[in-house]
């Protein structure tokens, strides 16, 4: 059994209309040529860190990211470019979902373990991450650029002292403002509502 406290979050389903302006404000400048996937991911992850009161992650913390369609838009653009010629180099880089992990690491001036898991439910990614994460916890994200966009992130830290008040929920429900803790055990995922 593993229990995590949510110390920060960004739930953007969809992100607000001015999310690009907010991102530029966080970064200090408008990001250039990194694509909508990475922009949306940076927006949610960095807002989550701000909410957690952190400027970067501890060295032993981990980043885990999931998505259903990933870099769909950039991939579609490059496939069209390839019908006639080579793609633009930066356009190809934008097709790689894990480029966001590098951009995020660079933005935080951080080096550590980061992993993209394609298609799995958030609970499955959390279970995978929980098997590897240590006492510095993780930044767990779910990102999709389709259908208005989703960029939801949780800053999770191991927390064993909280024992009661947990209830079972559906996998997608972990990205909620109404939850304070997550717990994984043999019977599945449970959450503790905000008191």
């Amino acid at each position, binding site marked *: 059994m593993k229990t995590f406290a949510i110390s920060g979050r960004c739930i953007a389903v969809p992100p607000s209309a001015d999310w690009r302006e907010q991102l530029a404000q966080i970064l200090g400048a408008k990001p250039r040529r990194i694509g909508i996937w990475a922009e949306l991911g940076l927006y949610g992850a960095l807002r989550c860190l701000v909410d957690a009161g952190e400027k970067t992650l501890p060295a032993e913390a981990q980043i885990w990211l999931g998505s259903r369609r990933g870099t769909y838009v950039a991939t579609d653009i490059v*496939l069209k470019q390839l019908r006639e010629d080579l793609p633009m180099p930066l356009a190809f880089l934008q097709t790689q979902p894990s480029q966001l992990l590098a951009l995020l690491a660079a933005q935080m001036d951080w080096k550590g373990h980061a992993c993209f898991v394609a298609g799995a439910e958030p609970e499955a990614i959390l279970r995978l991450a929980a098997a590897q994460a240590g006492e510095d916890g993780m930044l767990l994200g779910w990102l999709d650029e389709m259908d208005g966009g989703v960029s939801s992130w949780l800053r999770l830290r191991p927390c064993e002292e909280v024992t009661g008040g947990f209830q079972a929920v559906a996998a997608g429900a972990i990205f909620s403002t109404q939850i304070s803790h997550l717990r994984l055990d043999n019977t599945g995922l449970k959450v503790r509502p905000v008191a």
Partner: protein
Amino acid sequence: MKPVYLAGRGLACALGLDVQASLAALRQGGVATSRYSLPGALGGSFPYRAIPCPRGDWNERARDLVRRVAAEAGAQQIRSGALFIATSSFDIGGVEQGTAQMDYTSFSGKVAGWLEWSGPVYVINTACTSSLNALIAAQAMLNAGEVQDALVLGIELDNQLTMGGFAALQLLSPGSSKPFGANRDGLVLGEAVAALRLSAHDPAQWQMLGGANVVDGSQPTGASAAAVVSMYQRALAASGLAANEIDLIKVQAAGSPGNDAVEAQGLLEAFPKIPSLVSFKAAMGHTLGASGAAEIALLTACLEQGAWPKYEAAADTELGVVLAASAPDRVRHVLATILGFGGSHASVILERA
């Protein structure tokens, strides 16, 4: 923490359609390189390490190779275990043919269906380090007792997007891959489907001790020496070993002018005495997301059966490291490294009983 054994392996790559065929080709000095043509004024023809089976319908070819390689690894015994699919390109070759859709859930369901898999399925995509990150994740799940068996399945098959992207970035060699070579001039990409069967209950001669992945965003398409050193140190710590206990390192050494030099610098900083080094990139090409699993399958078979790659290119003496001309006499601890796109640096350490 339960020990994790490498209980089975399967491999299809440019050298052959299974491990034994690949070993036989390696012993004979390798196989001829095929060519891959790309459209447009900036395109052209590039060397390519293709799996020696006819290209046609992408999905049918992928299905046949996945089933073949998984069976070679003994996957039919563990269909309720965890399946870790490692790839940088998913089924984009099928998308290019109009027979697949860009949807990760569909892709993972399709591959699981090919194998009649009933256990949990994870698709790991961290570009070139995908297979090693899948191994690290699988080991953690086995160590934690979440599953008893796991199959790491690296899949990297023909598609124009990857070749075109690497060509656009001017990362491809026009001739051949020259790992740590004096005249190295870029990568030669290749295809591979590789399977590593991990078990927490089936002791085997290879045990996975640990691994580490370090993402460093300072170089978007290349490696950084600081991250290479950190990767070695973390992998050693996770395995409970000191640097002088490593007998052999399977290096990335893909023939990249910049990355090979960075990797050599990291080796010199992390290892007071450089262990024996081996690279398979000249023989099988860089198989990207499948490369970690493919090269470990071939490496362990080489050490068990006495085969070794031959390097035709002259070594770059300025790097300060050199690939071993033959297998070391005694190998107990092997460190396998893949460096990749997205600033990802990954290593795993295996112990031979």
